[in-house]
């Protein structure tokens, strides 16, 4: 088996990287894939909280790279999905405790056993970001439909291009169709027009995301929510499936067309 390493990064903080990693991981694992998530945000770990695994942590990634435990011992198995694992970040160390080549070595080891290795990058473009992208086969950039987030995404894309990394794909998170319709939020087209990279997912603003994170139960497991469906679609697209985008932005127009058609 040779797993694929997918790094989720953004430049700007708080746009939904950790949320995306947890949900895509859950979606991939519920399709029967072997998945491990690595929390690359050393010093500010929170992937374990969102996945509801905080109380099971014994060893963390710094223990692995410093040889205090075997990789297996630091892999926490998910409560619901037996093929889903998490390697948590160290809470009390700084990001210099891990180097880009440590990450490459760790991922090479994991590739042999896993289908997917998802890395949650910290915000910014410093050491933690470079650790996270060093082993990446694919990079997913998360942004919000908001100028400052898009600007930072552009910066990160430029750095990846300069380093000749594989072309990244884009996740537009927290899209609010009503605000777009009123002209108060950038649309998917506006974002694409500036960044011009492949869009792999469009996730609506959804308060259930926050509820689910607080419960430690990523909502990709929830069949009904639109955001959950959007994350499941991203997982399927990663697997190479062609999945149409959920119609978020033009719902009103769509409804009207359906109604018009129905009247005849």
């Amino acid at each position, binding site marked *: 088996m040779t797993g694929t390493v997918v790094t989720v990064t953004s430049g700007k903080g708080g746009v939904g990287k950790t949320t995306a990693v947890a949900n895509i991981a859950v979606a991939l694992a519920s399709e029967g894939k072997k998945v491990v998530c690595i929390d690359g945000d050393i010093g500010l770990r929170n992937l374990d909280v969102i996945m509801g695994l905080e109380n099971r942590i014994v060893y963390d990634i710094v223990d692995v790279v410093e040889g205090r435990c075997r990789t297996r011992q630091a892999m926490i198995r998910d409560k619901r999905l037996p093929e889903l694992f998490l390697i948590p970040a160290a809470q009390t160390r700084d990001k210099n405790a891990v180097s880009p080549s440590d990450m490459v070595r760790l991922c090479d080891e994991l590739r042999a056993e896993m289908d997917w290795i998802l890395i949650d990058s910290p915000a910014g473009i410093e050491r933690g970001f470079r650790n996270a992208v060093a082993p990446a086969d694919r990079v997913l950039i998360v942004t919000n439909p908001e100028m400052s987030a898009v600007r930072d995404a552009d910066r990160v894309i430029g750095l990846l291009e*300069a*380093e000749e990394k594989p072309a990244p794909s884009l996740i537009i998170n927290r899209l609010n169709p009503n605000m777009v319709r009123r002209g108060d939020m950038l649309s998917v087209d506006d974002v694409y027009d500036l960044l011009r990279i492949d869009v792999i997912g469009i996730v609506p603003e959804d308060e259930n995301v926050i509820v689910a994170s607080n419960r430690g139960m990523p909502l990709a497991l929830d069949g009904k929510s639109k955001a959950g469906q959007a994350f499941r679609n991203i997982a399927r697209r990663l697997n190479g499936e062609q999945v149409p985008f959920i119609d978020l932005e033009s719902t009103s127009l769509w409804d009207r067309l359906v109604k018009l058609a129905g009247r005849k």
Partner: protein
Amino acid sequence: MAESSLIQIKGIRDGLLVTLGEAAWPVAQRALLERIEAQPEFFKGARLSLDVGAQALRTAELTALRDQLSERGITLWAVVSTSPVTETTAQLLGLATRLFKPSPSREAPSRTSSRAFPVAKGIDDETALWVGKTLRSGTRIEFDGHVVVLGDVNPGAEIIAGGSIIVWGRLRGFVHAGARGNRQAVICALDLAPTQLRVADEIAVPPRRHGKPQPEMVRLKDGLLQAEPWPGSEK
């Protein structure tokens, strides 16, 4: 050869300045890393500027060195070189390329500042730098001749050129043509919607355009920056 003859280290305001000798790149790089390994405590946490002389370095070489330094707790923040290849590589990687540069965004450029804006050998107003891709936010290209971009210049990207700037794409970032005082310099783009424009020491913030984009050229006319459609009515 003794390694010390390959490397000179000096404390400067911004950290350490390391000047590498003219040895072939792999030799120079190895010498630097050996020197660091000999005195890890001295180098740990340092901000390093590297003067590589005329070495022409590409992305793979600079990123490899940056990562090697980073693993030793050293931040590479500037690469100074007389080679335009190295300079462009460094700029695209977001590294500084001038140690005591005047900040063109604050100080008005004048001929007296030209000492701090050194001209690499063989580069004058008639040389052009080819940039074959979109310049994204955070990239800053500085060049003493003309700059030609095949791609867009995104918001947050900057071009500072001694000569003219031609953008075969959408110009939405910050550009400064004739930065050393050349008032004949022009700025052209297929779609001109920059954050700010400068030619020599004149500054303009173009109004928001409505309607379809068209190619435009900006130049100084009667002391004012003016944009006109290209090709225009007059020759």
